[in-house]
């Protein structure tokens, strides 16, 4: 894909957001000024484009969804986070079967981590729903800025060296073999530092539940850099993990009224279609510039959430 197409895509999404932002201002002063259907329609188009950019930028849809939709649409953050969780959940559920069958995602690796993360996500969701919107926005803004820093600074390791598996992972027999198509080799892997990772997944779960974000941005560095799982296993297991972590938080949002079908369904369908188109584009080319555009969008959305929370940019 040529750069100009990417730029058109980005221009389109920024136009949509400035358009929706202007509409949001209008509706604040005059409820009848904008027909109700405009919002779900813009939401559908925006999430479709976000889905494409998520694949090309190598990030999860949920992490883009919450700050961007929360920042530029008139929906309360409760509904945005509820929808964000279902968006991340649907993406993870859809990707799960393929990743598990190919052996990229590993059930034995995911299950102990998921146990900790899903329990923590319940606590995070309950905290998130109890907090006032300005506090949520401020904390979300800071978290997004931290994610931007992680995306820019964190290194990745294709095949990290694990000299000796730790006692816990040995006892639980967390190891595996997968077939690497690009080299046509069987890759054996094992992990270390499992207790430390379990501890970190408490924080990851709480943040996932509190902000309705997918947690791939945190899962992958922990699995890859801390535990020493190969990058492909880390990315795939992280995606699969989201289907469990986000399920527990999603139920809390659903049971507490933070799910509106008119927001959730267009978002899920839009982002899923975007992911499908994104994967097709990715099969042909992967312009590196997209990742930086996605990071810039996250930076902007993070600053918007922070300033909104602090009452500087309402």
């Amino acid at each position: 894909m040529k750069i100009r197409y990417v730029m058109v895509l980005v221009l389109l999404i920024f136009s949509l957001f400035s358009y929706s932002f202007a509409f949001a201002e209008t509706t604040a002063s005059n409820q009848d000024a904008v027909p109700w259907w405009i919002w779900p329609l813009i939401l559908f188009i925006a999430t479709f484009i976000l889905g494409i950019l998520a694949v090309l930028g190598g990030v999860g849809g949920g992490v883009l969804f919450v700050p961007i939709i929360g920042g530029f649409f008139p929906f309360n953050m409760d509904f945005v986070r509820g929808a964000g969780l279902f968006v991340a959940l649907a993406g993870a559920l859809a990707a799960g079967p393929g990743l598990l069958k190919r052996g990229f995602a590993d059930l034995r690796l995911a299950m102990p981590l998921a146990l900790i993360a899903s329990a923590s996500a319940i606590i995070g969701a309950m905290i998130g729903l109890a907090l006032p919107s300005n506090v949520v926005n401020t904390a979300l803004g800071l978290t997004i800025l931290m994610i931007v820093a992680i995306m820019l600074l964190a290194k990745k390791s294709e095949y990290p060296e694990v000299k000796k598996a730790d006692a816990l992972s040995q006892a639980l027999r967390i190891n595996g073999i997968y077939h690497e198509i690009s080299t046509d080799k069987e890759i054996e892997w094992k992990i270390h530092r499992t207790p430390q990772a379990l501890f970190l997944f408490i924080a990851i779960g709480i943040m996932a539940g509190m902000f309705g974000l997918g947690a791939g941005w945190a899962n992958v560095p922990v699995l890859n850099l801390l535990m020493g799982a190969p990058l492909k296993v880390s990315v795939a297991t992280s995606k699969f993990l989201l289907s469990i972590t986000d399920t527990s938080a999603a139920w809390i949002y659903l049971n507490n009224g933070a799910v509106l079908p008119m927001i959730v369904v267009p978002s899920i369908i839009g982002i899923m279609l975007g992911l499908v188109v994104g994967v097709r584009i990715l099969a042909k080319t992967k312009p590196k510039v997209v990742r930086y555009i996605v990071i810039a969008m996250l930076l902007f959305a993070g600053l918007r959430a922070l300033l909104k929370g602090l009452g500087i940019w309402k």
Partner: protein
Amino acid sequence: MTADKNVKEEQIAYAKLLDWGMKIGLIFLILTFIVYLTGILSPQIPISELPKYWKMKAHDYLVSAGIHPGWAWLNLITKGDFLNFVPVAFLGALTVLCYIRILPIFLKKRDFAYFIFALIECLILILAASGLLKAGGH
């Protein structure tokens, strides 16, 4: 898609059920949304009034719209909007179903640690889904 030869039995069983469940859930999500949009079943909350509610915090929306939290939506599934909760809840329940599917496999393999992990995970997810945990109120 054929599974890799190195993939364990429970992982394949989980993947197969997840695959079917996800497809069924997505199809029903689209169908129920069409029912909602076309007005085949009248919604509990008139669509034109949604902009009033989606600005509120979830708790205020429930109070204002007179909707009870938890599973009370089951009483409203004949309404176009709440019908959409059926596939949404199904997607939410899918992980529990997959875990229940692999429980006997762990037991058969005498893999008690993972049997307990799976059992506790089921309990955690069922607790989250139960509606017993209330949040919000600001």
